[in-house]
Structures are given as C-alpha cells and as structure tokens.
C-alpha cells in the first residue's frame, strides 16, 4: 500500500497546499493598516492627516533603527498577557534575535544586547514593564543605530 499512501499524500498536498511551519518567534501581529490606500504625496510619502497647523504623512519606505525598534517592542507588548506564561520577559526573550547591526534590514527582531539589558534590569528589581521602557527608551544603547538616529542633525 505504500504507493496508495504516496498518492493519497500527494493528493492531500495538492488539495491543501504544502503545510507551513509555525513561526517559533514572538512577532508583532499583522498591521490592519493598508498604506497603499493613502494617496501618495510629494516625495513618495502618503498623506494621513492634514490639520491647519500640522500634517502627518507616512513614509513606508523608511528603514531605520526606529522602525526596527517599533517591530521589537510591538512584538513584546502585543504578546504580553498578564496571568499567563506570556510574561514580558518570556515575550521579549522569545522574539527573533537580530543577527546584524542593521536590524531594519531583517525580519522583526530584538537585539540580544537589549534582551540581556532587560534581564539585568529585572534582576536588579525593576518591574518588567518599566524595564522595557528603561532599556529601549531611556538607555537606548543596546539597539543598534538608535542613538545615531536620535542625534542626527
């Protein structure tokens, strides 16, 4: 019966498609925002809101440390579920670890240095949510390119 089993398996694959591996990493959920529906304005960005004194556009092409930071912290904050095994620490530690010094060129990831700094802070008595703020938004040193992005003239 091996041939029949093989045919059945082939038929199943053909009908159902090749099964995909679930991501082993904590990732931010898909964004409901479809940027292509916002009109393009000068410079290639897209218009979101125009108020008398200010205007907000999107630049979907930007790739920098701040974009990468957003991916990392969103993965953590969306994942976190109090009262379950998905603590802040678990969520952060289970994000993909950035492989390069340019995480904006990778899939959503968090730098190992940030993960380590977070654990150090928590071990030192800082509450996990506060440690996220401290590591990513106060110290900033662990995230490649972040300080440079904030110090650009």
């Amino acid at each position, binding site marked *: 019966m091996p041939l029949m089993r093989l045919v059945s398996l082939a038929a199943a694959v053909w009908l159902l498609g090749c099964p995909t591996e679930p991501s082993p990493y904590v990732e931010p959920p898909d964004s409901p925002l479809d940027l292509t529906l916002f009109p393009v304005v000068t410079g290639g960005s897209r218009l979101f809101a125009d108020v008398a004194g200010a205007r907000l556009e999107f630049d979907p092409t930007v790739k920098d440390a701040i974009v990468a930071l957003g991916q990392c912290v969103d993965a953590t904050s969306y994942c976190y579920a109090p009262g379950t095994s998905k603590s802040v620490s678990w969520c952060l530690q289970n994000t993909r670890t950035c492989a390069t010094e340019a995480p904006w060129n990778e899939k959503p990831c968090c730098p190992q240095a940030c993960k380590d700094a977070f654990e150090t802070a928590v071990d030192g008595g800082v509450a996990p949510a506060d440690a996220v703020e401290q590591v990513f*938004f106060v110290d900033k040193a662990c995230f490649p390119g972040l300080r440079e992005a904030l110090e650009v003239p």
Partner: protein
Amino acid sequence: MRALWLAAALLAPSAFAWDSVCTKYPNKSLEPKELERQTGTPCSPSAGPRTARERWVGTLDEHRRLWEMTREKAGLPEQVSATRTLTVFTGSSVVDIEAQPVPTLVPVPFAEAARVAYRSYSVGEFTHLPDFSWALWDWASGHEICPLEGATSLADCHDFAAHMGPVNSNHFVPQSREYYTHYHQLALERAAECRALGLKLTTAAGRFDEFHRECELEALTLEAVGQHYLQDAWSMGHMWERWGSSSLMDFPGATVEEKRDRAVLTALVSGFFHGARGVLQALPSWTSFDVNDAMCAPWEGVRFKATDGTINNGVGDDYLGVFQADAPYQAQSSLFFQCSVSGLLEVYSAAGEAHGTALPEGGFVSIDPTSERCFGQRATNQAIALGGAINLKIAGLQSSIPIDARFVSLMLPKVARASGKVAVAPKMRNEFRFQLQRAVTVARLRAKDDPDGTSLASGEWGTFMGAQPNGQYKGIARYIDAPWPWDEANDRTQYVRRTFHRAHATEWCASTSMADLQLLKTRAEDPSLQVEDRVAACTACTELTVRHLRIGTGPGAYDDTKAPLCDYLTPSPARVYHQVTGITDPLGTATRYCCP
C-alpha cells in the same frame, strides 16, 4: 472595508473639548431657543473677528447645553438665559474680515464714540469662549487684538489649530482646575460687587433693578467662561494630564517657531488619545462612517476613577446625548452636575439673586466646585491605552487602527509655514517618532499590568517633545483675564468695563466727572460731525448723562422722586440739572439735554 480607507484631509478642526459652535444668523438678537430652530451658517472664517460678531448657538453646542442643564438643576430663573443686547460705543475704524471692511467692536472712551455696536449674547454661550477667545477682554475687543507673538493675522491668532490648540493643555486636568478656580473667583468678586450695587439700590423702588441684573449677568458670564474648564474636566478625553503648557514660551526650543512646532505636534498627539471624532467625522468621505473614537466615544473599558475610588464609565466630546441620558454614564453626569451646580449657585447667591430666587432640585447638596472632588478624576490606564487607536464603524462593522510603535515609526510630521506645510528637521522627526513609540508602548504595558490604575493620567507618563505633563506648569497665562481687582489703567479692563458699562455702573458713576459729561454734550452737539458719528455721540451722551441727571434747575429744585442712578451708587457723583417743558421722564430729558 479596507477599500474605504482614504486619506484624511481634515477641515479646520473643532476644538478638542465638548463641542463649541459659532453660527451666523440673519437676526442675531433672537433668543437661543429661537435660534436653535433656525438654520444658520457656520461662521466664516471660523476664528478671529468673525466669531466675535456672531452667536455661539447651534447644533452640538455642547458647552452651552451643559450650562443650561446646570442652570435648570440649580433652579435659576429662565430669564438668566435670555439674550442680552449690549450697547457698545466704538470708533469709526474697520477691521478686515475676508477682505471685507467691517466696523470695529473695540470700545472707546464714551466721549470718542463714533459708532454704536449692538452685541447680542446669552450667558451660556460664554462657556464656548475659551475655544474662540483668549479671554473676556478679547471678546469685548472683538477679537481684534492679538496677545501672541508670531500670528500672521487676527484669524490666525484665534485659530484653534494654529494657535489656541497648541496651548490648550489648560482644558485638561489638572490645569483646568486652576483656570476654573481663577474664573470662579473672578465671578465671585464681581458678584460681591453686584450684591453691593443691589443693596445700594434698595431704596430706589425698583427703578434701577436692571443695573443689578446686568451686573449679575456679567458675574455669571465670568462663571460661564470658567465652567468651560470644569465641563472639559468631566469629558472623558480630558481626564488625563496632557503634555504641555498654556503658554507657548514654556515649550522647549531655541526659537518661537520651534516652540510652536513642538506645541503643535504635542497637541496633535494629545488629540489622538483624546478621541479624534471631532476632526474626522466631518470629512466628506467619512460622513457615512461612525467615528466612535475613544476616549470620548462610549467604549467598554473606557473608564475613569473618581476621587471616591469608584471606577465609572465615561464619555466626552460629541457625546453629550449619551452623557446626559444613558445609564452607564449616570455616575459621570451626576458627579459633574454636583460640581457645576454648586459653582453656579455660589456665584448667583453672591450676586444677590437679582433675577429671582434660585430653587435647586430637591436633595441637592452643595460642594466646593474648585475642590479635588471636582477635578481629581482620572482616566484609567486601560482607557488611555484604548485611546491609542483610531476607531470607527463602517457599515456597522467596528474597525480599529492601533497607534502602535510600528504605526508611529513611519510617521513624517510636517508643520505650517508661510510657504505651506514643511517637514520638521530630521532630528525633530526622529524625536517625535521615538517619543511617541515610548508613549504608546508604555501605555499598552501599563494597561495590561494595572488596567484600573491611573498612573498614565496622573502625570506618570513621562514627557513628550520636551513638554512635561501639564501639572508641572503652574500659573495662569498672561492672555487670560487678570485676577481681581482689575487695573483701571489697563486697556483690557476698559474693554470689559466699556462693553458691560451698565454692569459697571458703580465704577462709571464714581469716575465720570462734570468735565466728562460736558465733553459728551459738546461732542453730541458738534454740527461738524457726520451723521453716524453724531448719532453715536448722542446715544453715548444720553446713556451716561441720564445716570447723573436730576430733573430740575438746581440742588434745591429738582424732582427727588426721580433721583438718578448715580445718586444711589456713589457718595458725590457729578450731577447735571436740566428740565424740558412737557418732558418728565429722565431718559427723555437726557436725550434733549444731549441733543436738543
């Protein structure tokens, strides 16, 4: 559903507060209830001198409606809400409104009167004032004087988005408490003077009760201005310590332009958490949507903690109907009205209840309206996190776009310049993106850790664009009406006194000399004046002189049954003696005295 997402090209936005409206009606002198039945046109421009000339009555005039509900619960006579028409004496200059010359409303010394302006309003409309004017003196001067640096025009100076909005942190707790307290105290001070005026008129047999009522209405007008801040403090979208100051100079920045940029961006972000219905719902492509954006829209989970520790559902701007009638919001409205009615009754009682005895609703218990009880309410962490999204219903289906760290990281903020909207410098752009990422991430985590806590709303959310939570900025902005007593030599004092000159009859009786009265008469009799100038001069002369006029020929020979107003209000007023054969009433006599 996704195909319906379009760019949001916003019109001039409504104020981030319970709604305020300005409407142009053919007949401005009608009662508010009659105006409500009419179809007026929105004021154009929607800021500046135009708004000082029209009525603040219309659909969704939520601030005024909150005042009227407060008045009814306080049991004040309906007459308190009637339209008043002030006779204001101005010069002959004009101000430009959309390239059309319009007569000025800036009041001048009575002896310089060249025009007469009739300004109709009702007390409740002045709950809208902080959304249109910088202060009562500003309204009194027709929005024709700008107290700010850097505005390009009077309309620009009073434009909410361009100037008023960036510094409207005082519409949020806890600053709103300071501003309400300031105006409430002003109202009480004026009210005390009104009561004194009323007592002086006790023996006048009712002949001058109108002046006591006018004074009382001015005191209530000041209270109405203050209650804007109290009302805002009870709008869900305002129950948090918004970043920023009510003074532009408090914002960081090497130049005024940079300060304004930071203030504008801070206001923009604050508006997202507050709830963006007011700016999104009116968009042409959005009118079929229901922009039920938290925190002002009714949402399960959008709640506040009152000072008694209870956690209650809350709504805000554009949802007055829900606030007023829906059971989940009964606690919110009940707590609010106890504060607002207490404040109104304090002022009305202090003024002497010239319009009639107040009869508050049965069981009403008065409290200190300036207390923590009235300003200590704070949005929960969960509410603020829910505010961090754009919510709307499309064909009945709820959609929410989270303002999360990824969404924020793509933002490119631009600010207004004379040449148009320009991108902020890369440094400021990245600061904006990064700090907003921090804010939304911290909010999300805190909401999960402590959903019913109020740390985010209580000033523990950190800074944004260098602006502190508003509780860190103390003091009243310089553009606001000054604390009592007002400096007589200050122009702003004169604008109010000349506009509400009957309410300030005591001061005018005391300060008007014989020389002043003679000057009025001389000008009124000047044959070289143009007709309009002459009419104004006659009217001004009559208005002031009748208050000093004794019908007769001298101190021992006058009709003491018709003693003038100033005889009661001041010990030694200037006195005019005059009589006209066949005329026995003071007003007729004064008219003939000024313009024979």
